[in-house]
């Protein structure tokens, strides 16, 4: 069986799949990149409060062209709008919200997630590269739930769900769930447990692309 046959969800499909699991009322931080797309799949009538670590609660969609407020950006430095009910806090209060466990959810990208929930997503550890961490370690350590949203394997086919992270860690025992192009997988005390598999993907195919044993829901 070749990799080409295992397609799973597209990138937007992954974002949509994660968005479906976010209930009304949650306070949610979306990481830069793919996780940001999740907001597009939460309908406006489902009230989810999006947090941005630079001090916003209640982010709305991107502004119409030419209507950006220069005083409103998100953590990815993109222009944003505010929803009715939004509020602004300073930087120490914003990370107090994160570290204090007041975010119901943070959705982050990941290089690797280990079966014990360890997260590696801030550094490839390449010597000479400029390290940059931003709020990743605070979010990884602080949110009530951390979902990793990432491809199931690397570009050259190596598993990103592993027994132990090889990349430098972002946070210990942090990730509670992983959304990939192939499956939705919970991190439990017993290890990875499959919650959902993308249409057309078999359990065997999934296990073959995963660096640690997969439990099934039963």
């Amino acid at each position: 069986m070749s990799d080409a046959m295992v397609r799973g969800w597209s990138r937007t499909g992954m974002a949509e799949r994660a968005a479906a699991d976010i209930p009304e009322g949650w306070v949610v931080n979306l990481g830069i990149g793919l996780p940001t797309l999740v907001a597009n799949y939460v309908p406006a009538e489902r009230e989810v409060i999006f947090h941005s670590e630079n001090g916003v609660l209640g982010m709305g969609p991107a502004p119409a062209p030419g209507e950006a407020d220069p005083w409103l950006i998100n953590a990815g430095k993109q222009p944003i709008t505010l929803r009715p009910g939004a509020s602004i806090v300073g930087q120490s209060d914003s990370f107090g919200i994160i570290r204090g466990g007041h975010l119901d959810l943070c959705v982050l990208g990941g290089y690797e997630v280990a079966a014990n929930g360890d997260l590696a997503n801030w550094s490839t550890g390449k010597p000479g590269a400029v390290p940059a961490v931003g709020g990743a370690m605070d979010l990884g350590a602080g949110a009530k739930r951390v979902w990793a949203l990432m491809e199931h394997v690397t570009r050259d086919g190596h598993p990103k769900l592993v027994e132990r992270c090889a990349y430098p860690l972002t946070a210990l025992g942090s990730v509670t769930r992983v959304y990939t192009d192939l499956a939705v997988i919970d991190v439990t005390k017993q290890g990875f447990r499959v919650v959902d598999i993308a249409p057309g993907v078999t359990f065997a195919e999934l296990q073959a692309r995963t660096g640690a044993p997969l439990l099934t829901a039963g």
Partner: protein
Amino acid sequence: MIDKFVPDIDAALDGIGDGATIMIGGFGAVGQPHALVDALAERGLRGLTIIANNAGADFGGLPKLMERGAIRKVVCSYPRATPGANKATFENLYTAGKIELELVPQGTLAERIRAAGAGIPAFFTPTGAGTKLAEGKETRMVNGRLCVLEHALFAEFALIEAWEADRWGNLTYRRVGRNFNQPMASAATVTIALAHRRRELGEIDPDAVVTPGLFVNRVVIAEDAA
């Protein structure tokens, strides 16, 4: 639709049981959610731990809670009646050994509550170092000064008073009514606000919100509300 407004004070106090740890906002009588405390006193509770700056004062509903034997322990900085008032209920109970007291310097109390909300489990402070209130606590020199290690102070419930509130639970405070209400809102599992003005969502300027709604679980509008 998120809607944190509850219809009345009974609904606001739902789930507070014997043995609960409860923060109560206010400094002196200002910013204390009197209607919530008064109603709490009618519930026949036992074994409560109350965290409140002026827990020994002679005003508000706390003396009633004490008289009825609801309170096992008080965490506060100033358990004393205002000058000129009658000897406070707290003093009688304390002298009789019927209530436990954890005395905390006011700023350390505020910072321990803030730390609980901000995910800081412990911190060093120069306040109290070398005094009786630091006895038994870990100390060390930090930046050349003797400091005491203090721990975050959590509660199951916080009863607070706000000025404005919307259905997401965003709050503003009025003048010194902000006091302990602001940090306490962030430090409890269930934060219950008595507010004086009900606002539509979006009516409070985002820059003017002092306590974002995510810290607040229930809002009840005071009967005096406009």
